[in-house]
């Protein structure tokens, strides 16, 4: 790394973003969006950001009714279109198909699908059982297959759509992270690339966003000393936050982003 002080002696260290302003006009009015795993964390932030931009939002959740209600309440506070929540497991094909049928009945179309639902467990290979592996791969990868399969036929009919898969830096770079999680997220990138080829002719854009370490994200299980190492190595010397990732998601699924497809964008502050 070059020593900046030599070039510009007055440069000061700034370890976090200050004065961040949302300025670009992203208009999702009239857009119908389904987000999987929208009851908390990044999923909730994505629901809120898409609603702020004018989209009508529905989301799935697997466990907490109270958390799902919080997402609905926060969207209601925005005085935008009300959100709908569906208690549907990412692995329940029948319930997923029924939910899509209901949404199409109400909305006539789904313009945006954001596959966000995922899990992570911190187990080394020696302690990982077959069922641990299956649970992670099923939720993080098979779940995307099931929701996409149920939605994509309607996008094909409309000759338009955005599918955004939430991957992870752990699926794109060499990281000391659980092998089941890394394998599942690497699978998401392969899924994204292959699907973009298959449905591109119908004007369906398929992309993957791979966040790095986020405040409150799956990385919260990382030990403190390891986290300090990461903060040293990240170019911006800080973890990301849900709001900035969600804002980028809104751009990626908007009509401002119409020629990007099959790509994975790593959003990691420069790890």
């Amino acid at each position, binding site marked *: 790394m070059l020593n900046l002080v030599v070039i510009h002696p007055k440069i000061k260290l700034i370890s976090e973003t200050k004065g961040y302003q949302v300025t670009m006009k992203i208009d999702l009015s009239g857009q119908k969006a389904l987000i999987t795993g929208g009851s908390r964390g990044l999923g909730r932030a994505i629901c809120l950001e898409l609603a702020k931009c004018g989209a009508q939002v529905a989301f799935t959740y697997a466990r907490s009714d109270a958390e799902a209600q919080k997402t609905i309440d926060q969207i209601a506070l925005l005085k935008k279109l009300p959100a709908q929540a569906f208690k549907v497991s990412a692995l329940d094909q029948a319930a997923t198909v029924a939910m899509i049928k209901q949404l199409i009945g109400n909305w006539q179309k789904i313009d945006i699908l954001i596959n966000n639902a995922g899990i992570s467990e911190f187990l080394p290979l020696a302690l990982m059982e077959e069922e641990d592996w299956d649970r992670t791969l099923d939720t993080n990868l098979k779940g995307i297959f099931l929701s996409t399969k149920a939605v994509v036929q309607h996008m094909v009919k409309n000759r338009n759509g955005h599918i955004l898969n939430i991957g992870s830096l752990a699926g794109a770079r060499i990281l000391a992270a659980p092998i089941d999680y890394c394998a599942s997220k690497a699978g998401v990138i392969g899924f994204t690339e292959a699907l973009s*080829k298959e449905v591109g002719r119908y004007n369906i854009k398929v992309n993957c966003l791979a966040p790095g370490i986020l405040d409150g994200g799956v990385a919260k299980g990382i030990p403190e000393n390891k986290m300090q190492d990461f903060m040293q190595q990240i170019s911006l010397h800080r973890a990301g936050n849900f709001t900035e990732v969600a804002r980028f998601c809104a751009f990626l699924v908007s009509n401002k982003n119409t020629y990007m*497809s099959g790509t994975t964008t790593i959003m990691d502050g420069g790890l």
Partner: protein
Amino acid sequence: MKAKTFLVVAGSGYIGQAVVSSLIDEGHNVIATFHTKKPKDSPNVQWLNCDLTSDSGLDNLSQALKGLKVPLDGLALAVGGKIAGVLLPNNERLNFFRSFEHDPEWLAQLFQIYGVGTYGAIKLALPYLQKSPNPNIVIVGSLIGIKAVNSPLCFAAAKGSTRGLVESLSKDLGQINIKVNSVDPGMLEAGASTDISNQLKQEYLKHCALRRFGTAQEVANAIHWFLDENTYITGQAIVLDGAL
């Protein structure tokens, strides 16, 4: 909304003009450079004659930046160039560019533009960028610098050098919160793509999943987002090629 100030190097080109328009349409102020032909004056744009490969050009840029009374919020480098192909007598270009038929001078010239010129502009802009709360640098690269496709060797090599520049700079400038990324378009409806053979264009369309060329506006939208809003992506190549 508070207006921001951006510098667009080569703002008179196919992509550059779309970036300038996109920024001023949202109420921002732009300093834009041109090399040979000055575009029409428009409100909120200060045009500057600047050839980045010459000392006088860099001096002009330096003087304009010294006059800034506000922070520079972003720098876009949209430098383009004509693609050297092999012309047949009927004016059709060959499908395959012959890598070693180019004048070596052409290779040196492109590295001068994309490498040395880009480096010079960034170095001049740095002190003004670091005054911004959310500074960003976006370099317009090309698909041919990222993926293996039939293309003129000198152009691919020069554009590919952007990748190293972005990665190294992102690590260096991250500590002062400056994010550095490239936006790498595939084949577009106009601009440098105009000089590509019809045969190669048809090949591109066959393999591009969206089955069409991109537009300057689509590239400008991405550049605009990265200049204006990006807070946590750095060191990345953002490929816009319709899934080639």
